[in-house]
């Protein structure tokens, strides 16, 4: 197991905090959006864009780049935030989220935003699209990898499992899927709406290498990804146990903030909790 020094991990955690701050600010300014699922995914995104992926924000079309597909497109604020922090778009542009004429659509649009690899928003499409990229990589004998982030609600979608079958059938060991297992979907707890457990066994039965981690622990995210890179002949699913709304006390584990912007008072409190003042 690789050892990472504390300072490096603290740095990544700082990026994740920025993603959370930006996400809340953007959603507050837009007056709508999905804070809960943006916050649960922030640590995974920070690790991907600031450590794991080979990419170049100055060359979004670099053919050798690793690809990231945000299958849970409603976490767009978190994606835009990490793209801004990485340098794909100016941080100042984040406040244009969901506004007329903006490059930052409510859900990711690959033809508008540099760094967005696939247009998503309708759930359950991302893994299959990622598989297509992975097949292309294999055909072209390229070494780039594909990382897909799915919400656990997307495990309801039949196509997720069609894609899971395809990836293992074609031995797509260049695909890694992170499942943001925050255990809440719009209408309620995932186990109440549509039982997913035993989720890990399901992915294993579909031929995947499966790792379960704490999706808010930077070291675990990195170690699991390194393990995935070493697995040959089959794809890897990393079930990331997370907390919806992570980082803002009143949003944590709350259904209320799946798809709702915070009020002014809530926004100010969130900024305080995420370190630093509100604008």
């Amino acid at each position, binding site marked *: 197991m690789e050892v990472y020094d504390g300072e490096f991990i603290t740095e990544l955690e700082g990026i994740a905090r920025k993603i959370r701050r930006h996400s809340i600010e953007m959603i507050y300014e837009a007056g709508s959006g999905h804070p809960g699922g943006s916050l649960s995914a922030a640590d995974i995104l920070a690790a991907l864009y600031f450590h794991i992926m080979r990419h170049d924000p100055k060359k979004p079309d670099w053919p050798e780049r690793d690809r990231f597909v945000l299958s849970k497109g409603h976490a767009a604020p978190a994606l835009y935030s990490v793209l801004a922090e990485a340098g794909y778009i100016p941080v100042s542009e984040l406040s244009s989220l969901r506004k007329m004429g903006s490059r930052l659509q409510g859900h990711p649009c690959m033809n508008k935003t540099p760094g967005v690899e696939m247009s*998503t928003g309708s759930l359950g499409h991302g893994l*299959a699209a990622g598989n*297509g990229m992975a*097949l292309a990589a294999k055909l072209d004998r390229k070494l780039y990898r594909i990382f897909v982030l799915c919400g656990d609600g997307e495990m309801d979608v039949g196509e997720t499992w*069609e894609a899971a079958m395809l990836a293992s059938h074609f031995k797509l060991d260049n695909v890694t899927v992170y499942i943001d297992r925050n255990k809440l979907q719009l209408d309620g707890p995932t186990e109440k709406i549509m039982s997913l457990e035993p989720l890990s066994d399901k992915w294993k039965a579909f031929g995947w290498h499966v790792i379960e981690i704490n999706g808010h622990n930077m070291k675990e995210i990195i170690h699991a990804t390194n393990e995935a890179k070493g697995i040959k002949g089959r794809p890897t699913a990393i079930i990331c146990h997370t907390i919806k709304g992570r980082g803002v006390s009143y949003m944590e584990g709350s259904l209320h903030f799946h798809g709702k912007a915070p009020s002014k008072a809530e926004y100010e409190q969130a900024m305080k909790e995420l370190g630093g003042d509100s604008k």
Partner: protein
Amino acid sequence: MKWKEESQRKAYGQTLVELGKERSDIVVLDADLSSSTRTADFAAAFPERFFNCGIAEQNMMDTAAGLAASGKTVFVSTFAVFGTGRCYDQIRQSIAYPNLNVKIVVSHAGITVGGDGASHQIVEDLALMRVLPNMTVIVPVDSPETRKVVKTIAKLKGPMYVRIGRADVPSVTDDSTPFEINKAPVLRDGKDITLIGCGIMVSKCLEAAEELTKHGIDARVINLHTIKPIDEKTIVKAARETGGVVTAEEHSVMMGMGSAVAMTLVENFHVPMKRVGIPDVFGESGACDELMGKYGLTVDNIVEAAHDVLKRKK
């Protein structure tokens, strides 16, 4: 009239193989129907560039999108009924909206599927595809034109829908007939009325035109192979010069080719018009000819519609 009857599917399969030899960026996906759609020919020639996705059309469309986003020219095939309605969201979200280079070439469209019945006879696919922004919609008239369509669209970027049937169809064109997307060829000139057909109905329009000469009527026949973008110029010119239009399609009259022509004429040049096509009903099992008769897709139906339009012209 006697034309040679040939398979559009066979033409598609053979052309794919030709393209595969010329270009390494071409990949083909199918959903467990490759022996019927004839993508099996490509699979045999280029197994590493063919992906059978199993009976999972939604997954197939998104996988195609990912391949296209990585620079591949992707042909996706299955039956028309499964390649449109069953995966409409995938086509909309991941192919049409991002404007990706995916060519959806589907077979077994319309009621000429025959015995399989209504579950397999899609009569609304043109409607579904027409309304998608960025989508080009083509119905090749016959086997030679199918070859040209496939070669042409392989060179063009963007999402495209190509509809072919199961049955062998009369070859009203040959290899030397020019083909250009968005340019509807006039197959027969005439001054009294215009018959606009697509796909299998074009040969019936030509036969109807012959029949009409017996009544002293000189009919123009247009092969409207590209439904979208539509060749407004040729349609309006024909309406202006002949004063009446009949459309004929193996599709629901609700929102297919005839509707597209009607919309064009309403906004540009009003003439009496009649749409020949499948009424607003589902099909059923039967032999091709029987079904064409029952659902109003015969030469007589076109002739009758022409007389009706001519009556209203006066």
